[in-house]
């Protein structure tokens, strides 16, 4: 991994704009296309909302630029608060959307409870 940028955010809807703007900046710095950047913003927002709906009250969003292949890898991890909420229909759509837009989507679960979501954009094999 070449470079990192990490944000730690309280999981409140009014923080989403800040995270989206930061995501746009990171994608632009990684020379991603405008559409790629917008898709990445959607995925970061969806990941945060997923964690929020599961009961987390804060999350960290870490962007990294892989040494090879270019693009951006993002890891959104829930912290603080419980993770007791069951998955809803909205979550199902969010997960399908993540899989449709991002590459290499992985879910980190701790005893069945969702803990982190990671995905990549613009990576070349």
């Amino acid at each position, binding site marked *: 991994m070449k470079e990192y940028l990490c944000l730690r955010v309280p999981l409140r809807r009014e923080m989403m704009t800040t995270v989206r703007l930061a995501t746009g900046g990171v994608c632009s710095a990684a020379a991603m296309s405008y559409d790629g950047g917008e898709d990445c913003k959607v995925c970061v927002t969806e990941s945060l909302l997923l964690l929020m709906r599961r009961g987390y009250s804060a999350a960290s969003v870490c962007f990294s630029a892989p040494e090879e292949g270019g693009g951006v890898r993002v890891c959104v991890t829930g912290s603080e608060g419980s993770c007791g909420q069951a998955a809803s229909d909205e979550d199902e*759509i969010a997960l399908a*959307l993540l899989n449709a837009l991002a590459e290499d989507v992985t879910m980190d679960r701790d005893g069945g409870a969702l803990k982190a979501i990671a995905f990549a954009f613009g990576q070349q094999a």
Partner: protein
Amino acid sequence: MSAELRNQQADEGAEEREEELFRRYRETHDVALRNEIVEKYLYIAAVLAKKFVGRGVDYDDLYQVASLALIKGVDRFDERKGLRFSTFITPTITGEIKNYFRDRSRLVHLPRKVSELRVGIKRASEEFFAKNGRKPTAKELAQALGVSEEEILRCSDAGGVVSLDTPVEHEGEEGMSLHEVLPAENDIFEKVEDRDALESALRTLTPQERDLIRYRFVRELSQMETAKRMGVSQMNVSRMERRVLQKLRETMKRSMVEG
């Protein structure tokens, strides 16, 4: 019975009802049944369309694209494959929306939108200050202009003052200044956009009005010669020309504002 178990049972019940609905539709191809399914899942089209707002295409257009994709998806879905319909339809709708963006990319005028928004921000700020005696926040501006807070912040970022001597890299060549790489006043993209807008505006004219445009501005005939060819008086041509030009100006202005 625990809440988790109750939720699980409810989920299983919903899945069974969904399967049953699609099985009946697959067997009967009953249009009423298809409509029932589409109505039931139309919220997915609405949810997904909202995720793509702010990229230069109106929500209503995105919702329409998403709804059409949903209708097509209902026909293609096979419940026997064991997938939930929402899991199947989300990538289908997303794909259609992205195709729409790709097809429309030539017509989505982002730079122009930003410049229009900047004018709006300036006006709304002044109005807000006059009314409240203080400057507005980004959120207040967003509410006043009916756009997202993000668009306001992104727009103010895009409007930063930059020196024309700022060194930039252009087409792989370093050490050039910004004023050397800035497009000329009549940039080729602007020309393409203007031609598109004009073509759309011309389509709103009647055949007689289009004839007038052809004689006067393509063949460059005089009003008198045009009148002869169209079998009307020169006065009529003069009046019609004024009216047509006004109509074209208004249509073009509207299409540029709406992007």
